[in-house]
């Protein structure tokens, strides 16, 4: 199996980013950790040669997203924990509410908002990552913002 140091490097460098994405996709911390673990395993088994760090990061995000989707399919047949199991949202109330509102959105909006506003990717980059056109991503961001704002206002203001 892989040397400890190589695995540690990947987990230290990308673990938080992957966990954020997986948690927002899956809403369950244990599942998100599993998805991160599977992604790291996939990295050491299947990763191509990367041209740069951004390429490596984008590859990991794509794999993590696919892992999350597999888990969501699996979850449909096996009872999963609800959002009440969520334990690791930020402790301050405002941040917690915003993330909860984000997690209540349909997946495509969650993903686009997370990649753009939390991970800082541009529209073109997101489009490549998720296999959509830039206009589709813009649309998802636009609609996502609207739904997020509405949800936050209704629930928490």
């Amino acid at each position, binding site marked *: *199996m*892989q*040397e*400890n140091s190589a*695995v*540690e490097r990947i*987990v*230290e460098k990308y*673990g*938080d980013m992957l*966990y*954020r994405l997986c*948690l*927002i996709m899956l809403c369950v911390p244990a599942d998100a*950790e*599993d998805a*991160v*673990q*599977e992604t*790291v*395993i*996939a990295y*050491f*088994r*299947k990763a191509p040669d990367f041209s740069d760090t951004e390429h490596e990061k984008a590859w990991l995000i794509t794999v993590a997203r*696919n*892992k999350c989707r*597999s*888990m969501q*399919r*699996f979850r449909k*047949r*096996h009872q999963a924990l609800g959002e009440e199991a969520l334990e*690791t*949202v*930020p402790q*301050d109330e*405002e*941040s*917690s509410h*915003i*993330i909860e509102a*984000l997690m209540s959105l*349909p997946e495509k909006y969650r993903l686009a*908002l997370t990649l753009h*506003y*939390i991970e*800082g990717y541009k529209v073109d980059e997101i489009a490549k990552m998720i*296999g*959509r*056109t830039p*206009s*589709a991503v813009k*649309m*998802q961001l*636009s*609609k996502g*913002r609207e739904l*997020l*704002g509405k949800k936050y206002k209704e629930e928490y203001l």
Partner: protein
Amino acid sequence: MMNLNKLSRAGEKIRLSDDAKKRIIAACTQKLPDNAGEYTDIVMTVERYKPRPFRRFAAIAAVCVLAAGGTAAAVSIINKAPDISSSSRSKQQFASPSTVLSDTIGTVSPVSETAIGEFLANDFIGNGGLQSLSATQRENIRGLFADLTATETEPFSIDSSLYTEDGVCTFPVLQYNGGDCNSHISVIGDTVKYTYAYGLTGQKTYRYYKLDKNIEAELKQICDTHFLFMLDGRFYPEWGYDIDQTGRDEINALFNGLHFVEAEDVPTGLSDGTKDGTALFLRDGGKLYQINVLNNYVGFHLYTDTIKEGMREDLSILYKCTDSEPKMSDKLAAIVKEHRHMNNVVAEDFQSDVANTDKYSIWCVTEGEKEYQLTEQQEKQLSNLFKGLTLTLRTSDSVPSGPEFTFYYEDREDCNIKCPFKVCGNLIKVSNLWFRANDTELYQKVQDILKG
């Protein structure tokens, strides 16, 4: 409107705990248990069950063909494929190990009464995750097992020589439903190892059987030979063309006699997104089937939901014809050219949608970088404008130039976004087809409504 900087800051606070990091690092570096080979299978099959990269290029090729108004055609060439119709999937829940009919070691039972039988009764999906099985293949596999009997035996290890250098097994592994590896059966000669895993990294349960027949070679042959789904005439065409019944019959006959295997290489023309080949489409309710044929290659895609932004691709496989018959796609193109007829279904569907303002909402219009959010009145005005037009399919190959508006509309109830349409001059683009409207001032009228 929410301050989105708050979202950024909130997101940054989500982090893996130190304990979680340690667990993940340990899981990736620990020495694997004795069934390492099998575990390798599980990880590899999860990774391999992913959409193939060629599909985007095939889709681009197909769209280019359509936009050229060239050899694109809509043909119903796929039958009711129960393995890809969710409604036809077995509703039977897979039993947990404790409820599987128990066989004491040494008792001979028909396969139907064993854990293997229970597995086969469900929607096993692929051969080690490398491929998805068709309904015909699954039927053939069930038929292969039907008359067998199984004796439960002592556990056995799978010889490492049965794996390739990068850990891929050379024997067939049938996997249950979806690539999440909660159960699979490995068939080696006349023995079967059945693995049930609860959760992706959960505890595994194993059962071992000896069959009364060596079925490995026959099973591999079933998995390796693919049968294209055939026409049944039930589907209606997509994207502006019909194929008459004679054409459908000829296409049926063309595909019916051919054999396919899953291809690893992607041919030029599909890989570089050129306009080669022939694209066939058909729609069945919420599903869209797309087939791209280039030389002896066939790209087969199933999408769930009708054509719109965000449609989900459920299945994408590239096949290669193994028969000596060359240039399959030329024959197909010739049939399509002779038997296709234009129809107006795309325009009719579009006008019906935009007219129904109770169901659909035009929620955004863009013109370059500029974005318009519409009032209810503007939506109604646009709806009336579009539904009153007479649209005819534009046959020119040239792409319209000039300023254009892009309209985003969605189903009000479930927020499902429809494919955006465009207006450029007096042309309207719907589902990648350009139509000419009978109103030469169309663009100006749209502009007046948006600025009004």
